[in-house]
Every structure is written in structure tokens, then in C-alpha cells.
């Protein structure tokens, strides 16, 4: 994928969590969403994070995706400590090294398909021609070029999620995080999106998804089980 990715030594994991904790403080209560998480994900892996509701999957994903910060512990991404970066630097890494796919697509309703896909590239400050090339390539990859002028509300759920995938991959990230990517889709569209993620992984992408579905979890090479904020299982697919 990127030039940076190619320099990673095989022995060095792409993602490394050591003793990560996450606590939420309300007025009178301290809730531990994650406790003492140790985790490593290598480049090119396809990992599924499983667990019941409230187990801490989404919190783990938001920390992995630098959407949130751990209360304690260390998080190394691409051989660099990222757990304690300031908001600006975290935003820069999210923009350049991480791609997201969300359950509810999270396309911006006031932007066209093209503009939604272009948005992270615009934040990166890429020149117009380069943005155009990447957006066209990403839309082509998800077979949505013909819908580039449409607004999100004019698309079906499956189509919206394919646009979200295009947006996630347009910037050539180091890793793709997907939070219940099929949760808002029917089974046919869900399959299509999961096929797409499979294709991305096959072409070398590191993919990490959170899912309730055991069927979709089985498509990953490795499944991490979370329960009550702890990793209770970590197994490679048979």
C-alpha cells in the first residue's frame, strides 16, 4: 500500500497495545470500559473483534482508530507511540494512516458522493489532479463511479456503505477499521460489503472489524473475543 508500510520489519507489529485501560467518569461513578488490554496486530492481518453488547468492542476500536485516547497504557502504531498524542497530531494520523467504515455509513448529507470521498484527501492537502485520480480509483474499486454526482440520500444503504468504503480506502491507509459495517444492511448488501473488505485484505490491506456476526467474523483470519472490557480470547481461524 504506502511507502511507509513497505519499510516495516516483519518482526515489528503494526499495532501494539500494552496494558490499555479506558475509564469513563460520570458525576458519581467510574466505569471501566477496557481493562488491561494487551494486543498486537501485524501488517496485512484481517482481524475480527467479537463480543456481546457493552463488552467494550467499540471503545477498543475507537482507541485503535485514534478516535479516543486510553486512560492508561501504551499504544504503538507503526512503531510510534500514539496513545498520548495531542488532538491535532491524532487527526493527522487518522487522515493519513487510518481508514474508517462505520455501521451508519456517516456520509455527510450535504456533500455529493464525489465530495464525500474527496473529503479526507482535501484535509490532507493533496493537489486537485491527485485527488481526482484517487477519488476515481476508489469509486471504481467499489463500482460506484456512475453515482459520483448523487447525494447520499439518493442512494440505498448498501450503496452508501460502498461509498463509505471508497472514502476509507481513497487515502491508501495503513489500516482499515470497520465498526459493524453490515449492521445497517440487509444480508445481500452485507455480503457485498464484506466481499469488498475481503478483496481489500487480499490486495494487502490490514483490516480490523468489529462485528456481532459470527459468520462475518469467520471471514477474518483472526478473532479477538472481548468480554467485560477484557480480551478473553484470541484465536486464528482454523
Amino acid at each position, binding site marked *: 500500500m504506502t511507502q511507509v508500510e513497505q519499510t516495516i520489519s516483519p518482526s515489528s507489529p503494526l499495532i501494539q497495545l500494552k496494558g490499555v485501560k479506558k475509564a469513563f467518569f460520570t458525576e458519581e461513578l467510574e466505569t471501566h470500559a477496557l481493562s488491561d488490554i494487551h494486543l498486537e496486530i501485524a501488517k496485512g492481518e484481517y482481524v475480527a473483534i467479537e463480543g456481546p453488547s457493552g463488552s467494550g468492542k467499540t471503545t477498543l476500536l475507537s482507541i485503535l482508530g485514534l*478516535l*479516543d485516547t486510553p486512560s492508561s497504557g501504551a499504544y504503538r502504531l507503526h512503531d510510534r507511540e500514539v496513545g498520548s498524542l495531542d488532538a491535532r497530531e491524532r*487527526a493527522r494520523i*487518522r487522515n493519513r494512516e487510518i481508514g474508517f467504515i462505520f455501521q451508519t455509513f*456517516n456520509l455527510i448529507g*450535504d456533500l455529493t458522493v464525489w465530495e464525500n470521498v474527496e473529503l479526507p484527501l482535501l484535509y490532507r492537502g493533496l493537489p486537485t489532479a491527485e485527488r481526482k485520480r484517487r477519488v476515481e480509483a476508489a469509486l471504481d474499486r467499489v463500482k460506484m463511479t456512475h453515482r459520483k454526482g448523487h447525494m447520499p440520500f439518493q442512494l440505498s444503504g448498501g450503496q452508501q456503505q460502498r461509498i463509505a468504503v471508497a472514502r476509507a480506502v481513497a487515502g491508501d491507509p495503513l489500516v482499515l477499521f470497520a465498526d459493524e459495517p453490515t449492521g445497517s444492511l440487509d444480508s445481500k448488501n452485507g455480503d457485498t460489503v464484506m466481499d469488498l473488505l475481503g478483496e481489500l485484505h487480499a490486495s494487502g490491506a490490514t483490516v480490523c472489524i468489529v462485528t456481532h456476526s459470527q459468520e462475518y467474523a469467520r471471514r477474518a483470519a483472526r478473532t479477538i473475543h472481548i468480554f467485560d472490557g477484557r480480551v478473553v480470547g484470541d484465536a486464528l481461524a482454523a
Partner: protein
Amino acid sequence: MLSLLADVRFTLRLFRRAPGFYATVLAVLVCGVGATTAMFSIAESLLLRPLPFPEPKELTVLESTEPESPHPRRPSVSVPDFLDWKAQATTFAQLAAVDHEGFSMASAGSTPESLSGTGVSGDFFPMLGIRPALGRLIGADDDRVGGAPVVVVSAALWHRRFASDPALVGRAVTLNGRPFTVIGVAAEGFEFSSVTSKRVDVWTPLAVTYAGYALMTPDERANRSLEVMGRRQHGVSLENAQKQLSAIAQNLEGAHPDTNSKVGVAVADMHASIVESARSSVFVLLGAVALVLAIVCANIANLLLARAQSRRGEMAIRSALGAAPSRLALQVVTETVVIFALGSVGGALLSTVLVDLFASGIDHNVTAAITIRVDLTALLASLAICLLCGAFAGLVPAHAVTRVEPHEILKENAARSGVSRGQASMRSVLVVAQVAVAFALLVGSGLALKAFAEVAATPPGFNPTNLVEGFVDLASVKYEKDEKVVTFLRDVLAKVREQPGVQAASANSTLPLGGGEDGGPFAIEGTTPWRVGEGPVLGRNSISPDYFRTMELPILRGREFTESDRVGGRLVAVISHATAERFFHGEDPIGRRIDWVEGQKARSWREIVGVVGDVRHGGLDIAVTPEAYIPVAQNPNRSMSLVVRTANPDALVESLPRIVQAVDPDQGVWRRQRMTDVVARSLGAQRHVASLLGAFAVAALVLSTLGVFGLVSYATAQRTREIGIRLAIGAMPEAVILLVMKSGLRLLGVGLLLGLPAALIVARIVASHVPRVSAFDPVVYTAITVLLSVASVAACLAPALRAVRTPPASAVRCD
């Protein structure tokens, strides 16, 4: 740059998506910026922009001072004094005198036109550096006794009356029955004559049109009617000019004790003198409009903050995709700047309309010298105001979006996520600020309005309803003989009385509340005369028979004048109640005799034959001054107001010129008006300030009420689920209403509390600039508190009622 363009494009798209919201923001902004730009333009035009003459700082006004007279300082100078000053004042490069005169311009085949004219001395135009648009202007050669009657016309008159005829110069026009040769047209836009005068149409040489010019007699020296202005020598300060003029006045006092005892001279900057009457009101209104703008900013900041809150989901997506907090803030700021740029354009356009409205109450003498307009400086200031407002209103929501956490995107619906405590506090602070500022502004306006209402309720002493005035200036040569004046008035009034609906008609030389004055020191037969310069002044009003009935002035004792009170008969006078009280101390004045002291003239005692009620002359807010009436037949005056009580005032205003011209076809009626308008106009600046303050206060009330309404509505919407649960478990509707209203009323209470000290400050400022305002009027403070409270309760009630009407089930489902 590309990102910026994308943000601008996105903002314009947002306008299309939420037109109602953005139209509201823009409307509030355009009104706020428009009013501020208009008010700033007026302040800039009057106070900051120099007079439109070369070296304007050298221009000076010279006034007579009489410390012990009722008018200690007035712009009235006698011809001999002016000529002495001019001969001796070496600190001045030029000294010019002017005398205002109404002209009736007759043209064959058309109605005589009444013109505003001024006799000017030879230095007038050179002193002001005015150039002619056509021909030449009046110079020293024209301004000599016995000189040719020549006239300079204004460019406006040239366009209007002479169709911009380039051959006008050299043609003769008839002014007041005399032929005058037009020698030139003044520069375009120049209609100035003095600091107290309205716009003028024609200028004539003073020495040619002023009858007593160059008569250095004591009578003429006591006759102070010229206005004098000058240009100081380059580098001479006002103080040095004052010193020299004071020394000259002192010498004149020694040389002419009968007329110049205790008469001094005061010099003042011309610009300051012109704008003096408007300065206070401009400052007060500028302050008021600034407060309105502050409320506008707080309101818009609150609206944008609410908008930013509803876009938390979008901002979380952008953040998740790698937009740094500063980038999100930049986007919000860009949106705000686009809004304010549009607001600035709209405000600038609106200000060009509002500037005329706001300036309409400014004295005409000010606008004769200074053109009030929105110029480049004002527009730049408007832009600066907009940027400042934009910075304030935009930074609040911009700061809010920097607090958006990207992990909110993983929530079920980020847009519905609760308001952060910080943002809720910020919105409350903005609403409290609006209430506080609105309270202060409402109190200030309330005090000014109350003072104005009290003045407006003061009876003028006569009944202005169904009373019409028409002013005639009998300056034509045909009225040189007194009997001609008396005959003209008698014939015109007879014709007026024949008109349908006319109940009574008469004439006077000093119209109540008309701004004119006549009179002077006087003596009472049988009492020790006051020393020269120390005696009181008695107003004098020459009137025709039937005057008191026409004006509905009560005759308290004795009788009024009749046709038998004519020249050659017994000299008589009617005095006012105030005169009787002040000078006769309860004794019956009927039969006593008085006379005005005029130079060395022998006494002509007048017998008092009646006492009438008091009339206010200077204004409804100015104390009654002693006055006496004399028959016009015994003291003919050529500047007379015809006063007519009629059932059809509008018809008479329309027909008056035809009635006058039926008696004298060459005579114009210089002014026609209803007396109710005269009374209203006498309130002048105070009415202007009070009405504009009232308008600004209403705007403040509406905006702050909207602020409370918006916040309570939003907070209630955020609590829909909670309210649903409360209702589901059996809460009574009134308990829910109270719950919703409590938050709004808490803001109101804090706002009022914080507004009180601000109101006291505003009240003191208003009291120091607006006459008769008491800064600590508990009635006003209480009334405004009640008004603001009622408005806020109403604002809270709507969302509260909406909340209790929500079915509990749907409220719970909304999450």
C-alpha cells in the same frame, strides 16, 4: 485555498438546506449592521468629517454675549459692532456678516415663489472658498450701500426654477417687488449661509438689502440681528482670537455704554457650533445602536452555537476523517465570515435608507452645512464592525466544534447526543447577556420616553388643533409705508374669514413655538427704571384684532384689541399672566403703562388694557417668559404670521396662497403649516432621540425575548425523552410547565440582576445628554422589569406548553 473555497461552497449549500435558519440570521444581522452603519455614518458626517470648505479649522463663529440677559450668548450682532470688529480684528483674515430674509420671487404667468434668502457681506464667499458654478459670486465691490441689486442663486434653484439655463446670468428677477440681476450660480450643493440657518436659495449683498447698513447710530448699534463668522489668520488660535475680540468689545463698551454695556463677544469653532445641537443626541443614539448590535451579536452567536450543536455528527465525521480541531474551527469561521459578508452587504444597502430616517430629526441648520451620507469611511467602518461581530459570533461556535470528540461518530446518532455542559453554559451566558443589555437599553429608552411624554403633555397655552399658520414677508418696496402693511393684513384676513369653515383669523409677528423672538428691555411708568443692561426683557408680539379668540388664548382681565386700536389712537398693550405676576406683584395692571427701551428714543407709554394666559415660545420644555401684545396697527411689522382657526385646516393650507394673491398678486406665502405640526416640531431633537431610542429598545426587547425563547425551546427539545418519562410516570402538566419555565426564568433573573448596574450606567449617560431625564426613576425601572419579565414568561410558555402536549409514548420513542 482549495479547502477554503470548498468551505465557502459548502456554506452556500448549507444556506439552501436550511433557508429559514440562515434567513433569520441574515435578517437579524442586516438590521443590526444596517442600523449601526447608518448611525455611524451620521456620527462620522457630523463629528469626524471636516466642514466641506478649505482649511475648515480656521472658520470661526462670533457671537454677542450678555451675561445678565435671558440669552447670555446669541449669534446676534449689530451692523456697527460688526464693522468695528472687522476694522480692528487683525487676528482674522476675513469677517463676514449675514442677515436672513425671506424673498418672494415673482415671474410673469406663474405663482410667486417664496425663497429663503440671505444678505451676505462681501467676504462671505471668499471666506468659505466657494466657487461659482456659473457667472460670479458676491464680492466686496457688490457689498456697498447704494450698490446694484444683484443676486446669486443656488444650483438647486437654478435647476428647479430655471431649468439649468446657462443664460441665466445677466437676467433680471423680481425679488420682493424689486428687480435683481442674477450674477451667478453657487457651486453645486452649496446652500449654506450661517450656523443657525436652514438651506438658502439666494444670496444678496448685505449692504444693498439691509436697510440700516452703515448707519452708525445708537439705535442701529442696539439692533443686533446679524450673524457673524470669520476665518482666522493662518496659525492664529481660537484663544488668541478671543483675547483680541474681547479687548475690542471692551473698547466698544467704553465708547458706547448705552448700547454695549456688558456686551461681550465669544468666538467658537464653526464646525463645533454647527453640530452642537446634534452632538448629544448622536452620542446617545450611537451608544444605543451599539447596545443593539451587541444583542444582535449575542443572538447570532447563540443561533450559530445551536446550529453547531445540531451538526455535531457531521463534525465528528470530519474529525474522524482527519480534520484537525483547528480545521473544523476554520470551517465554522468560514461559514460565519460568509454569513457576515452577506450581512455586511445587506447592512450597507439598508443603511443608505436608514441614514435618512435617522437623520430626519437633526436640525436643518446642521444639514444645510453638512451632507449626511454613507460614504467610503462609513462603509469601511461597517465592514470592520461586521468583522468584529463575525469574530465574536463565529468564535463561540468555532470553539464549540473544536471540542467535538471524533469517537462521538461511533454513537448511534451523534447529532442527537447531549449538549456539553460548557456549550450549555455558553448559550446561557449569551442569553443572560442579551437580557442584561436589553434591560439597560430599555431603561435608558424608557427614561427618555417618559421625559419626552411629560414635555409633550405640557399645554402650549393655545389650542393648536384646527389652527393654520401662513407666513408672509412683506419686504417688497410696495410695503415701505406702514399703512400699506396694515391694509394688506386687514384685506387678507377679511378674505380668509370669507372662506368656508373659517371660524376666526388674525395675525402675529411672533408665532408661538415658531422659533422667532422680539422684544427687549422695558420700563413701567411710575417705577424706578432698571439700569441699562440689567433690566429684564419683555417679549413683544404685534397682533391683529381677534387674535386671542383665534388662538383660544384666555382673556383673564380687561379686553382684547379691536379695529379702533389704530395708529394715532391711544397706545395700548395686553400683557401675559406671567408678566402681570412678575412685574405687578398681584396689583391690578389694567391702566398701568409700559414701554420698551429703545436707544435714545423718547418714551411712548402704552396703557395695559388686558391680561391673557401664558403662551410658550421657546419650546414646550422651556419656561414661560414675560410677554406683551400690541396692536399691529400701532406697530406694523413686515414679517407676519397669518393664523386661522378653521374646520378645514388642510383645505386652508392649500388655498392660502390664492387668498393672499387675490389681495396682492406678487406676494407669496413663505410657509404654510398646521399648528399641530409646529407644536410637534418644537419637540424636535427630543422627539427624534426618544423615538429612535424607543425603536432600538423594541428591537432589543424582541431579540432578547427571541434569545430566551430559542434557548428554552432548544433545551426543552433536548429533554423531550425526560419529559416523556416524567409524563409517563404521572407528572401533572403544570409541574412540567414549571420545570421548563424554571430554566428560562432563572436566566431572566440573572439577566435582570446583571442588567441593573448596566441600566444605572446607561441611565446616567442618557440623563446627561437628554434634558429632564431623571436617572433614578423607580417607575421606569419597575415598568421595564415587568415588561421584560412578561415577554420572557411568554417566551418560555410556548415551549413549555408544547412539551406537555407531547404524547409520553412518542417522547420516549424519540431517542
